[in-house]
């Protein structure tokens, strides 16, 4: 299909609904399989770390959630741009559904980080550069969530969130840099969370599987929520009525 046609069709909720039906299943099954395989492999079969012992295994949850929470924010920025420039309804739905997902992933990453920190560093919380960046990211997600809740009109709320997501995306690299700089000022950089390159393959392969799995989960959750959202918003249209009548 020519790219331009695809672009226009993506603006049509009906087309999105029909196309996404099978993709939800594919992504959902892939996510389940990959996450089970990756987690079992990482938790039970990968070798223990020679310094941290078994406690390092939380990495198999911590790192994928941390990565996906940052990608989700980038996705929000992209969706925001699309919504503001082309007013595509689908972009608004992506914005609405990705915020709670990204927010919970960020919270999970912070939580697993704290649980990991206790046996490793002897403390639940460290003002480490990455931890701090994640905390600020969580606040950015809170802001998006609260803004959408506060604005009664759906279309207005979506476009307001789009502006905020854009500001956040522009700001995130600066926040990351400033926090990195601040850390080197206050604390010696002894606490590095992951030394990925030093890992043997039997340790990082399950990690890669889990990262892939969580991206599939993101896709599945987004599409599933998108389909519900499409039905809800288009409930008065002919095609949704026919669809419901056919069930």
């Amino acid at each position, binding site marked *: 299909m020519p790219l331009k046609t695809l672009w226009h069709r993506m603006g049509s909720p009906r087309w999105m609904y029909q196309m996404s039906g099978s993709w939800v299943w594919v992504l959902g099954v892939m996510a389940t399989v990959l996450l089970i395989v990756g987690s079992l492999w990482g938790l039970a079969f990968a070798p223990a770390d020679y310094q941290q012992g078994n406690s390092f295994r939380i990495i198999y949850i911590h790192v994928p959630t941390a990565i996906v929470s940052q990608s989700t924010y980038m996705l929000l920025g992209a969706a925001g741009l699309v919504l503001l420039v082309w007013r595509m309804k689908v972009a608004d739905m992506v914005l609405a559904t990705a915020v709670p997902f990204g927010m919970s992933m960020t919270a999970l990453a912070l939580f697993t980080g704290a649980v990991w920190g206790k046996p490793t560093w002897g403390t639940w919380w460290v003002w480490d550069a990455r931890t701090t960046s994640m905390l600020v990211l969580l606040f950015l997600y809170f802001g998006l969530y609260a*803004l959408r809740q506060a604005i009664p009109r759906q279309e207005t709320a979506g*476009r307001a969130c789009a*502006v*905020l997501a854009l*500001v956040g995306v522009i700001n995130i690299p600066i926040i990351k840099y400033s*926090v990195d*700089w601040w850390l080197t000022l206050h604390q010696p950089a002894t606490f590095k969370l992951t030394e990925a390159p030093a890992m043997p393959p039997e340790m990082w392969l399950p990690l890669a599987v889990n990262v892939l799995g969580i991206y599939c989960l993101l896709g599945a959750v987004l599409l599933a929520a998108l389909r519900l959202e499409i039905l809800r918003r288009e409930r008065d249209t002919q095609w949704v009525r026919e669809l419901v009548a056919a069930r």
Partner: protein
Amino acid sequence: MSVAGVFVGQLRREFKLLLQSREELANPLIFLFLALTLFALGGGGSPEMLRDFAPAIIWVLVLLANLLALEGLFRRDYDDGSLEMLVLMAEPLFLPVLAKILAHWIYSGLAMTVLAPLAALILFLPAEVLPTLLLTLLVGTPALSLIGAIGAALTVSLRRGGVLLALLVLPLYVPVLIFGAGAVVEAMAGIENMAQIYWLLVITMVALTIAPFLVSAALKISLEQ
């Protein structure tokens, strides 16, 4: 000629409005010093402790005082309908928006910079780092007004937007706080700190480039109801 007229006309209007609400104008500044006093009292007045924390305390309170002043940036114009008129008639919209932000900076950021020596005195900040503090405030506070204006524009139509505004804007202030307070801390330790000042300048320039357009977009969104 008319383009400059839009900017100057808006600025003139803002100053007339500020003159009419002189007593409100001082409130964020009074808040700043009230909170400084509370810090000193809470810390037991110990000069060593206050001096060590002075850069952080001053910068955090500047953020908060700035935030307090932000609430009214568009609110009054929204209430009497002038904001609608502005959005419909101004061509281009970002010029009067920029004039409003400039006025906000003058009575928040610039005013706080002017009063900062007093704050430094209360917190026993060494006199030799005072120039650094003033420089960081002068370069960093415009970014606060510019970024904050986006949040103010997004929340202007909401009756109870105050706490929400803080939630939206404060995380975005993090880099300004880090570089601003960090530069003063380094100056106290006698370390070269021009890098942070340059970074503040970069953030302000980026905000100056982008914020007026995002504020304009946000105002149009907020009026759409």
